[in-house]
């Protein structure tokens, strides 16, 4: 190699270095810009979340207050003017109160649903058998008496957020009880199995069932397959179930046939339980 070649090489190398330096400066500027963008976005998300929280607080507080007044004054009218009101008048007042109550439930359900989006989940090991006993005790205390036979034993322990899983099981069980309540011998069977890296839990009832062609609507918010006269409800319960299970990286699905019962399934990832603290 002669000298000219050397200096040519040097020139090329210098140019390359200059080019690289320019690129570095450009990249650095881009990085600063995109960091700024991320900060901006984070700030906006934070603001939106705060807005949403203020909004749900306002919805729950400000909508419930007038509802209580509607329900209360209808009741007072019925009590204090019972001699003036005939039975039709009393019935109409009853409808006013029923609807105020229904709207109260609707507001609560919607808030539960919207809160789920923001809530962080804390997983622990959950004894599903014990959890079902707890949920059944809640159901017995709350709603009207049911005569469903509820069968389960030795269900696999789950790794999940205790309170959220409790909500899932409460919704599935109260649905099963509700939709089988018109059968002579309502029966609900809860089972679990371990399959392909998943824990699968199923809730089967021998109730009203559903037509599989509406399966897509089943888990949507405010979607119902029955009228309120047949079976009361707000149409939020299964949407809540789905949202909670998705937050746990699980799946939900259902099988059924009209008048021949329904089975609801959910799955949870089968995580190594030794690494998780107990929560009974």
């Amino acid at each position, binding site marked *: 190699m002669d000298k000219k070649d050397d200096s040519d090489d040097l020139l090329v190398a210098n140019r390359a270095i200059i080019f690289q330096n320019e690129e570095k400066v450009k990249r650095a500027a881009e990085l600063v810009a995109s960091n700024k963008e991320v900060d901006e976005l984070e700030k906006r998300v934070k603001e939106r979340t705060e807005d949403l*929280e203020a909004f*749900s*607080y306002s919805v*729950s*507080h*400000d909508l*419930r*207050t*007038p*509802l*209580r*007044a509607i*329900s*209360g*004054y*209808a*009741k*007072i009218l019925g009590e204090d003017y019972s001699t003036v009101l005939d039975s039709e008048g009393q019935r109409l007042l009853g409808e006013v*109160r029923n609807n*105020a*109550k229904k*709207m*109260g439930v609707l*507001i609560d359900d919607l*808030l539960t649903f919207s*809160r789920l989006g923001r809530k962080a989940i804390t997983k622990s090991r959950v004894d599903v058998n014990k959890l079902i006993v707890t949920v059944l005790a809640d159901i017995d205390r709350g709603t009207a008496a049911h005569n469903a036979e509820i069968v389960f034993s030795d269900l696999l322990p789950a790794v999940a957020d205790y309170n959220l899983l409790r909500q899932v099981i409460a919704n599935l069980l109260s649905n099963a009880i509700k939709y089988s309540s018109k059968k002579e011998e309502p029966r609900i069977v809860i089972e679990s199995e371990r399959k392909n890296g998943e824990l699968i839990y199923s809730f089967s009832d021998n109730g009203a069932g559903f037509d599989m062609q509406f399966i897509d609507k089943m888990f949507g918010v405010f979607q119902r397959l029955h009228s309120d006269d047949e079976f009361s409800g707000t149409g939020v319960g299964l949407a809540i179930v789905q949202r909670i299970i998705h937050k746990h990286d699980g799946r939900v699905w259902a099988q059924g046939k009209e008048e021949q019962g329904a089975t609801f399934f959910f799955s949870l990832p089968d995580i190594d339980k030794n690494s998780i603290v107990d929560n009974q």
Partner: protein
Amino acid sequence: MENNAVEILLIEDNMNDAELAIRALRKANLSNNLIHLKNGAEALEFLFGTGKFEGRDINNRPKLILLDLKMPKVDGLEVLAQIKANERTKTIPVVVLTSSKEHPDISRAYLLGANSYLVKPVEFDEFAKTITELGFYWLLKNQPHV
């Protein structure tokens, strides 16, 4: 009435909620010595014998304070903080009543020394039951601080 024995002090800005609560307490014969004040500022004047309650015997302490949280000007938390920060009033049981369980202030209320925190049910029968039960509990069952 200001210097008679006060049993319940109801601090509530919503006249409907106040009327419904008073009715429930009246039906349970718990409303004879009830005072209803419509905002936090009035409540503080009453408790500390200032402003329009100047000269009230402040040793005549209510057995129970029912406190709404959401009030204009001086809100429930501010009233609670002042009640619990004052030697003369801090042993009076304060039951916080609010419309919403979404309330971000539950933990603040407890940190400030609230004795109980209740969500007012929408349904009137349940609301009346809640109010009556808490009236019975705090006025008749609970042993007050002497």
